[in-house]
């Protein structure tokens, strides 16, 4: 039911695991099945220079996480925000219809991490003496 690409990333996910000292963290949940995805980013000069994820979910959610982290690494924040779950699904060579919703977590996770980074930076700038 899954493409080879999905299985490959599910079996050997890239950028997996927690990050020490991230600049932004996004945690999103899937209201349908209760799954959770957490994205950590390091940002330099408005670019995502490092990224990792943690996912509590099915193979499709894990593969989507892995794929999206590879896709946005090196992109500017605005470029990363433009990545949609459709882009992730296409890059994976497709997902079964009942598993498309898992890829939404990937899109939302990136957005949440970037928002967190921007909010922190804003707060940091304001807090500076």
């Amino acid at each position, binding site marked *: 039911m899954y493409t080879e690409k999905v299985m490959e990333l*599910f079996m050997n996910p890239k950028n997996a695991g927690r990050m020490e000292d991230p600049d932004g963290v996004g945690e999103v949940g899937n209201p349908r099945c*209760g799954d959770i995805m957490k994205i950590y980013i390091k940002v330099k000069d408005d670019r995502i220079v490092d990224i990792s994820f*943690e996912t*509590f979910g*099915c193979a499709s959610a894990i593969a989507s996480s892995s794929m999206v982290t590879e896709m946005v690494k090196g992109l500017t924040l605005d470029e990363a925000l433009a990545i949609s779950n459709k882009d992730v699904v296409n890059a994976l060579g497709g997902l079964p219809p009942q598993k498309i919703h898992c890829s939404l977590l990937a899109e939302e996770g990136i957005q949440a991490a970037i928002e967190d980074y921007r909010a922190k930076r804003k707060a940091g700038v304001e807090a500076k003496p």
Partner: protein
Amino acid sequence: MTERYVYMDHSATTAVDRSVLEAMLPYFSEEFGNPNSLHMWGRKARKAVNEAREKVAALVGADAAEIIFTGGGSEADNLAIKGAAFTRRDKGRHVITTAIEHHAVIDAFHWLEDQGFEVTILPVDEKAMVRISDLESAIRPDTILVSMMFANNEVGTVQPVAEAAKICNERGILFHVDGVQAAGHMPFNVRDMGIDMLTMSAHKMYGPKGVGGLYIRNGVKIEPIVHGGGQERGLRSGTENTAGIVGFGAAADLALRRLGDGSIEEEVRLRDLLIDSVTSSIEDAYLTGHRTERLPFHASFCIGSLEGESMLLRLDAAGIGASSGSACTSGSLEPSYVLLAMGITHELAHGSLRFSLGKDTAREDIVYVAEKLKKIVADLRALSPLWENRG
């Protein structure tokens, strides 16, 4: 590719045993007769069906005349439930079942509800056991039927069937038991237990798929759901699936032998080894269902902070076939209703896993599965945001 292949999904289905296959083979092309024909070909087929009926009856302590062959367990459940409810609908309209039944039972009850019957669904405790006191208080003067499974397919718990039967017998309420998981794997006698109707399925005991049996106690009248040529005492019309029925008979024979030769005791030892290995070597891993009142071949768990589908696919890649009741595997994205009925949280139900052993499962298989699972759990937990945050 992998070191071993270990099929541990015998609750889903079993391989047809060699002896069963060999018994069946002549009934496709050589002894192909219609059991309802008068000639030699027909008589040979009739004889084979009758012998199979004897064997299936012997497995559960029934008389051959009390066994009806069907097209599987689901059909037998439907026949028992709908057939009994319709026969007794003038006596009352209240029917009772439990929250953890197979869909073949639950959905038949929902259909009865649509037909104007009133349905009470009994809850279960945290080990998936029905409380007898709940059954007693659910019974009304107009209760006509109670259906309770012998043992649950997802969590293995064996129900207090004999006690429930006694209560129903005393009150003249028909008592149906879905014995699909238990028949052939646990020794029991329908007469001693006071069971009025018992569902069995050949493919859960090394027989072919699409063949089932319904024991109907002598004297119990039910309506058919398939009308036609009047086969199976008018309760299941249609030319008999001779080869399949012969296969069921051979499977019942095999099961009866296994019940007496120490095989089940060994299965229990292996099951307990798996349960102990998993719960002691994996942190935050829990047995689901009852520890001792459970199917001899059944070990089911919830693994904290993990999701079932991801574990199943990693197990599959290691050559291990198992199953899960997780939301992500269900299509409906709801976790198994059985786990929820036991009070297991959505989150923990996510990590549900079922291993069901078979007659060819070896000790080395158990060791292999326990080792692989431990590694898979560790690898996937390294990916799980819940694992590090657990309180």
